[in-house]
Structures are given as C-alpha cells and as structure tokens.
C-alpha cells in the first residue's frame, strides 16, 4: 500500500460537506459521528450499537429490562429471504420487540438509474425484486412512455400482461413453498421449485434470460412470441393446475400448518392501510385495493377479473390470498391468450430518448403489492429523478407491529407470509 501525501491527495466528495453535515446533525440534536481515526461509533460485530442511541425508537428497542435479551437473526440466516438482519428482543421465548436492520444489499439503483439513459434503466431495475423482474420493468416502462408521450402497440401490451401474469404465478407459487419451509416443511419448496423451473424456462424462451429478463422496452417489448414459447406455454397451461394443486394439497389442509398459521400475526385492515401495506397482504386484511382495478394500466380494463379479499388478516389468510390470486392469474392468462391481437410489438422509438421536461408516475400491481416509479425528465437523455417504491420495503414495517407477543419461532413464519424480497427492500 502506498502512502498518500495529504497535501496532494484528491479530496473525496464525501468530505466536502462536513460543515453542512455538522449543522444537520446539530439540528437533529445528535453528535456528529467521529471521522476515521477517531473512535469508531458504528455497530459492533454482534449487533448492539456501541454508541448512544440516535432516536427515541432505537433507545426503546436496545434498552433491556430485567429478563430480556436481544437475539440477532441474520444477516445470513437462511430464512430471511435475502440478506437482512432482525434484532429481536425476547423475554424467554416470547418476542417483546423487533428492529429490522436493512441495507446489506443496497446498491443505489435509483442513483445508478439517474445516471443511465432511459433505455438502460430498464436493465438496472431487473435485480431489484428478483422474483418478479417483469413487474420491475413494467412500472418504469409505463412511466417513461407517459413522459415520452407514446403508447406501446396493442399486441405488445397483451404480451406484457401475459408475461407479468406468468411471473405472478411463479412468484406466488414460490411464496407457498417458502412459507412452508420457514415452518419446517421441506417438501413444498421442492415442488415449488419444479414449477418455478418450468416457468423460468418458459419466460426464458420469450426473453432469452431465466431470471433477469430485460424484456420490456420503452414503447413495446423486445421479442414477439415464438414457436418454442407457444408450445411450452400450452404444455405448462395443461399441467399447471395439477402441479399447483398438488402443492396446495400438501399445505392448505395440513393440520400442523393450519394450527400454526390460523389466528397468527393478525393485521387489521385499518392498521394495514396506515402502515402502507399493499398487494395480497392488504387484500388478505379485507381491503379491496388492487392497482389493476384502481388505476387500470396496460390492458387490464379489457380483461375480466375481480379483486379477491380475505377478511381474517392472519398468516393463513395471506397464504389463501396467494392461492386465490394464482387461480385468478391463470384465468387472466387464458383471456389474454384468447384475445391477443396481431400487429407490431415495438413502437418507433429512437435509441436515445429525450422526453420533454415533465413528471410521470407509473404504478403496477406486483406480486408483493403496489410497485411504482416516479420519474422526472429535464429534457436530457437520462431521468433527472428516478424513484421506485418497493412494496416489500414498506411491508417490513409490519414486523415490529405484528411480532410482540408471538413466539420467536413464529418470526419467520410471519415474515414469510408478508413475502418480502430483500433485493427490492434494499434497492
């Protein structure tokens, strides 16, 4: 390692705003964290902050009373659905409080997208919520088309709706498996992955990629359907009812599963709305909010479907909600295949898009809920601001609300029922 002459060293951009930062911290009423070389004030290896608490809430979680103990789950815990850490405060085996610690997978995708052209942004968003990449691409495509003032051709919209519904089926199918796995049932996840593998091969035959599809374009989709896709799709459609049904038969009526999930982690509708929960988790609490109905995008106003809800709001209701939505998605897929028109799949769009200055909001119903993109154009080739609202990020706030009073073994079951994906949470 070569030593650096402090006189000639190029300053970091980070170091330039020290004065402003001091002012901000003073306004917050907290001490400025020391610089490198001074005393380190971060987290120690086991998770208790080795410094005074920064906020009221942090003090509440990390202050222990007699008989209480902190348990650290993760970040490499197999059931945390990615890399995250839960600091759980327990009294015996009963959870008293919980603090999710995020950021282990933070890649700064929003910032990267603000430095990429509109076309390139659609490749960056894929690894966000990596179980539903099609949905990740759909929302920015909608927002950019609004900004640029074009519409995708009808056939492209139908293909989009087809692939996002296929993606929803496999995402929900995996959630069934993960939920059972987190409660100790190993078989459903294996069946779930067999189903998933058929579906990723199916989606790969139209997009060329198994996981990060990069299929959507501003003003259309990358490829039209091909022979391989159609033959795989018909085989899959014939078998899917049985394969999902097999898996469902393992779980839904299982006595151990129902005993552990019914009445556990109950989230009321009002609380869910206040917490910003969306998607199947919100509908399982009895609130009929589905972006496909609320603000129909793509071709959803031409298709026939209902917003399914369950009223119980517990883990079991969230599970049943997914099953019902799989069936509904299959119903939608049938309609889409029947009604698909002929025509081009891509509008005439230049390689580098420069929309007029303006703002656009594109929201889709992803398998995890309301996924939206707020894009601002200043007339340049890349978005001035690119904001993504990820549903799993918001759903995680439910954990500290639901967990108190439950056993520590139920933490993972409740979390799996919310179905967060850390790639999306951490952006």
């Amino acid at each position, binding site marked *: 390692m070569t030593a650096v002459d402090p006189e000639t060293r190029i300053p970091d951009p980070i170091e330039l705003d020290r004065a402003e930062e001091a002012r901000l911290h003073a306004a917050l009423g907290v001490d400025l964290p020391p610089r490198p*070389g001074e005393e380190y004030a971060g987290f120690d290896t*086991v*998770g208790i902050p080795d410094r005074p608490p920064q906020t009221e809430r*942090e003090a509440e979680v990390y202050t222990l009373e007699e008989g209480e103990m902190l*348990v650290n789950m993760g970040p490499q815990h197999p059931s945390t659905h990615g890399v995250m850490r839960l600091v759980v405060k327990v009294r015996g085996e009963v959870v008293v409080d919980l603090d999710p610690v995020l950021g282990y997978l933070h890649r700064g995708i929003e910032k990267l997208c603000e430095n990429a052209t509109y076309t390139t942004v659609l490749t960056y968003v894929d690894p966000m919520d990596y179980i539903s990449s099609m949905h990740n691409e759909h929302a920015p495509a909608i927002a950019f088309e609004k900004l640029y003032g074009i519409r995708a051709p009808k056939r492209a919209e139908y293909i989009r709706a087809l692939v996002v519904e296929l993606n929803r089926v496999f995402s929900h199918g995996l959630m069934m498996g993960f939920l059972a796995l987190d409660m100790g049932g190993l078989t459903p996840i294996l069946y779930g992955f067999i189903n998933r593998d058929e579906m990723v091969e199916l989606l790969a035959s139209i997009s060329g990629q198994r996981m990060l599809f990069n299929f959507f374009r501003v003003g259309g989709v990358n490829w039209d359907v091909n022979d391989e896709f159609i033959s795989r799709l018909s085989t899959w459609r014939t078998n899917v009812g049985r394969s999902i049904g097999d898996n469902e038969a393992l779980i839904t009526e299982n006595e151990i599963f129902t005993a552990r999930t019914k009445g556990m982690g109950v989230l009321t509708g009002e609380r869910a709305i206040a917490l910003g929960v969306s998607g199947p988790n919100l509908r399982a609490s009895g609130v009929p909010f589905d972006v496909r109905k609320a603000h129909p995008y793509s071709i959803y106003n031409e298709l026939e479907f209902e917003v399914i809800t369950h009223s119980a709001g517990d883990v079991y209701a969230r599970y049943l909600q997914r099953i019902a939505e799989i069936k509904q998605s299959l119903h939608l897929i049938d309609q889409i295949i029947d009604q698909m028109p002929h025509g081009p799949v891509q509008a005439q769009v230049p390689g580098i898009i420069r929309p007029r200055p303006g703002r656009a909001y594109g929201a889709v119903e992803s398998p995890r809920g309301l996924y*939206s993109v707020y894009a*601002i154009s200043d007339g340049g080739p890349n978005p*001035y601001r690119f904001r993504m609202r990820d549903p799993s990020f918001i759903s995680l706030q439910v954990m500290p609300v639901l967990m108190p009073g439950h056993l520590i073994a139920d933490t993972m079951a409740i979390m799996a029922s919310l179905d967060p994906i850390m790639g999306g949470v951490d952006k």
Partner: protein
Amino acid sequence: MADLCRPGSAAARLGRRRPLTAPAVAGALVRALTDRFPELAPTLWTDEDAVEVQIEGARSVEVLRRLRDDPELHFWYLADEAAVDYGVGEHFEVVYHLYSDLHPAWLRVRARVDRSSPHLPSITELWEGAMFHEREMFDMMGIIFDGNRDLRRIYMSPDYRSFPQRKDFLLPDDAADSSAAGVNPLERPETWDLSRFSEEVAHSITPLLTLGTSAKGAGPEAGETDADGTDADKSRPR
C-alpha cells in the same frame, strides 16, 4: 459546486408552467380541490392520470390531513413519498402520491423544502407507514422530518456521513464534474480505514445469541466474545 453536466438549471427548466388541461376524468377532483384549497389553485395542473398540487413544506401535515379526512376527497392511501433534489442553490421537494377510490386520478402533492435548512413536518401521525419512506429520505437526501421518532439511517451504516442521492454527490463516472476526478474512494485502498476490523469488541454488555453467521464475525480476528468471556470462534456456528 458544479451543477449537472447539462447547461442551465434543471429546476428552471422543470418549473416551466403548463396549461391546465383537465381531462374529463379528473374534473371532479380539480373542482373539489379548487373549492377547498382556493390558495393552491394556481399551482394545480393535471397529467394523463394524475392531478398535481404544490404546497409549502410547513403546511404538509395540515393539507394532507384535510385531503385524507374530507369525505369528498378521501385520499386514504399513501402510495408513495419521495424526495427530489433540484441541485445546489435550489430546493428540495418531497412528493406525496395519494390514492382515493372516489377519483380516477393519482393526487401528487409536491411540498417545497428549503435546501439550506431541510426541515419538514413528519406525516407519521397520519400514516405510520411513512416511517420507512422518511428514514430513506433522511438517509439518501438528508431531509429532517420533525416529529418522526425513528429518524436514523436505514440503508447506509450509522457512521456514514454523506447523503448519496443529493445531486452534488457525484458518481465516479462523472469524471469531468467530480471533485474526486473520477476516483472512487473504494478504489483507493491506501485510504481505507481498517482499524475497526481488528479492534477487540468490548466485552458484550448484553448476552446475545446469533442465529446464522453474523455480519463481520466470519473472520477470526473479529474477536467475538461470549457472554461468559470465552472466545466464541471455536464453537461457531452456534
């Protein structure tokens, strides 16, 4: 500080007024808003599927509460809360997207925040789910939400000292604009501070159990100490 690589201020170009062309679908919402907030009428404009209104940051809680509780507006769902930085010398903006089943348009409320003292009232009393949004905005933009009881960093580590989504935080790729002249601090190992990795962790004050491997505990030099003072490395994973 250098502005964006493009000429002219972004905010100036974005601030260009547009004619109010209300589509029929949003007409009822525009009327209801002008009735209730006549002072905001000049800032109102409509989009393909959104109605937009601009407010002063200090009024955000009051306006949003009326939007939520008024039976004819009834914007009960907070869809999004995001911050926008218009660059040095300009201002921040916190943008709320609201949903109501009475109106077929998203409502976008843009609250202006001063960049030199970025304070805004927290809306966690209206929607407690705004907590993570506000933590993220504090982390990424440095906007301080008064009344939020958990305003700490959410993505970056607690000792991180900058606000990465501000426009004056430049990526290393912007070589021409960056004061670091295109050199990422992470690419200069001579500046790395490794002292904290060898530092012995002070004897744990609290007994603590780790399920799974811990973040930095993988290296033997991490020196994790068990509750009874014995070295825990031998018995990993516990």
